């Protein structure tokens, strides 16, 4: 290599090296959190961005900071559209915040990969005071703190019930009564349908079927976690009942459009969550409705429950402070402030659930009662795949005309394969 070429190459390398260093410094300067000037900064990623609730979150944070002068909370908003992706990327790149809000079905994904700090020992005295621990437990320890939960109940249009000749206070408590009510409403004609049946909408359809499945005694995985048992007689009965309801008097649509139809008096009975109560209240919708527990074959049955949890990153340098803030967020007063502002029906704190705000409102009471009759999906790190299998099975039965027994058996085999691979 001649001198000129060598020198040119070296110059080029210097420029490149300088650029890379500048870029790295720029990127590393973007990360935050930790201890600055004696004060501890806690990074908290959360999903409550709605202008109706965000000021409440900010107020709770400000109150905490004023009571704890050495702590500063750095809030970052996430959206449900891409929040999960951002959290996954943050954990895998080692830039996760101290505290992160997680959906109940995401916790195991992170705890089983060592991304969350175990908090069982620190909160052992709290476990009896809160609902919603099952999704937070992995290998005998607790990895997240339940915050705001959400179960699903029946919403019944009383105006339509009255038109059928039934007492407008009628609320079905078993499958026969539910079927009769939906059929009667459906026979009113004029485009009115009896039951709101969910379309093949991801992360939604299975949540509407599982209440029927669980209420009939169905299980997805055996108690010891070794076998897929979804394809049982009980599971088949539940699936056939749901299909019959959907085929004979169901309005099939997405959850949002079913709720629109319910509010417009076009469908008599739907399964929904507390967000619908909030919508009715906030939009001042004039509708005569009643809420009821999800019916089982004989008596009120089980419903689906999920929720928002707060977890501490395993790499956080401020674990005790982060946990202290989580306990503050989930105490009786703050959960009540939050639920009042957001019209949330299922606080995780049992003391909050006994407050007048909940006991005086019949609709909120239904949610509180249903909470005691609700189930979380089986805690399994592979749940994302199992959910996919169940939704595909439901789509095949409800919309593609595949026999229920065959589809359930197929789903069982696929779930069993996942369990075997895990071994």
């Amino acid at each position: 290599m001649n001198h000129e070429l060598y020198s040119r190459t070296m110059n080029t390398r210097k420029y490149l090296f300088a650029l890379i260093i500048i870029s790295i410094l720029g990127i590393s300067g973007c990360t935050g959190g930790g201890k600055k000037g004696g004060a501890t900064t806690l990074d908290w990623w959360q999903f409550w961005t709605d202008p109706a609730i965000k000021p409440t979150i900010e107020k709770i944070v400000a109150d905490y900071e004023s009571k704890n002068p050495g702590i500063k909370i750095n809030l970052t908003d996430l959206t449900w559209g891409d929040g999960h992706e951002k959290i996954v990327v943050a954990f895998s790149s080692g830039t996760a915040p101290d505290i992160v809000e997680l959906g109940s079905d995401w916790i195991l994904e992170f705890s089983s990969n060592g991304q969350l700090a175990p908090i069982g020992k620190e909160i052992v005295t709290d476990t009896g005071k809160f609902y919603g621990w099952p999704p937070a437990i992995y290998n005998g320890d607790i990895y997240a703190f339940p915050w705001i939960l959400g179960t699903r109940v029946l919403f019944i249009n009383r105006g339509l019930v009255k038109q059928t000749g039934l007492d407008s206070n009628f609320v079905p408590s078993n499958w026969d009564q539910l079927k009769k009510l939906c059929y009667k409403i459906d026979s009113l004609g004029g485009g009115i349908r009896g039951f709101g049946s969910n379309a093949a909408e991801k992360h939604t359809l299975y949540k509407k079927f599982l209440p029927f499945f669980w209420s009939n005694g169905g299980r997805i995985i055996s108690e010891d976690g070794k076998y897929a048992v979804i394809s049982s007689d009980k599971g088949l009965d539940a699936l056939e009942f749901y299909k019959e309801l959907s085929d004979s008097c169901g309005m099939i649509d997405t959850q949002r459009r079913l709720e629109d139809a319910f509010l417009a008096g076009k469908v008599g009975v739907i399964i929904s969550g507390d967000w619908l109560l909030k919508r009715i209240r906030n939009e001042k919708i004039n509708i005569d409705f009643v809420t009821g527990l999800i019916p089982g074959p004989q008596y009120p049955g089980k419903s689906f429950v999920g929720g928002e949890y707060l977890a501490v990153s395993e790499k956080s340098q401020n674990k005790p402070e982060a946990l202290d803030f989580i306990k503050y967020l989930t105490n009786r007063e703050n959960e009540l402030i939050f639920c009042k502002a957001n019209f949330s029906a299922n606080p995780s704190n049992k003391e909050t659930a006994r407050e007048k705000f909940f006991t005086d409102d019949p609709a909120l009471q239904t949610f509180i009662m249903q909470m005691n009759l609700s189930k979380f999906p089986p805690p399994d790190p592979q749940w994302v795949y199992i959910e996919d299998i169940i939704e595909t099975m439901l789509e095949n039965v409800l919309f593609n005309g595949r026999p229920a027994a065959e589809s359930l058996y197929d789903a069982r085999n696929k779930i069993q394969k996942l369990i075997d691979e895990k071994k």
Partner: protein
Amino acid sequence: MRSRQSTGFLLASPWILTFLAFWLFPLLYSLVLSFTNYRLLRPSFDWVGFQNFIQLFSDTAFLESLKNTFIFVFGTIPVTTIIALLMAVLLDKRFKGRTLFRSGFFMPSITSMVVIALIFTNLYSRGGYIFILAQMAGLAPPENGYLLSNKTALFSIMAMDIWMSVGYYMLLFLAGLKSIPVELYEAADVAGAGRWRKFWSITLPLLKPVSLFIIVINTIKSFQVFIEIFVMTKGKYGSSSAVYYIYESGLSRFEFGYASAAAYVLLLIIAVFSYLQFKLMKQGRI
């Protein structure tokens, strides 16, 4: 001289760095990942050779999405190209309001795909205008709307895509028509050629370079169909595409190794099709 070269290199380096960091590196890295079982969050991963590729071709969901992608490509490209060509020929003539028509037809191309997809989701749903018009015309639309039926979801998305992209290709054809020398048409007039004769013997052959460009870019775009499906159906009701499948594997289940393998299969298919199109066009078969 050396100083000028260094300055030039320094000025170009932001682009070079961006190219290396955000284009070439991810491209090569995903090729490496396609031979691994890498999943985000998993601390380590293993080299699995061609296992991901073998698994892909026994994965019914992937094969289904690939089939849908081919239906989309072969269903939309000929229709889009023919309509765009006819519209360009019609709008090449002078008549009152021509600019209005040109702008109107081009408008969907500059509108956000997400906005259009959301509007069409409503138009296709039960109670939407298209649904009601079909009912009035006695066409018996699917009970729950066009997007909630296995028989119509994919075709409804294809129809929307044709409506949306036809204006853009019309504009390209118009540009191609402008480049055809008028003398050729005058000579044909002298020779007594009719309108069809001029179209077949002059217009169409001289539009070949533009047609090739349109077919190639439309093929690449159609093989990568994603936004419409993401917004309108989330891949349900038999409408999943190859890119949607890759998105689901990579960004929903975070199976980066498997998703990378699927992406490379798609890349290979697009490359083969683009090569074949160039080859056939050169040989004058299309």
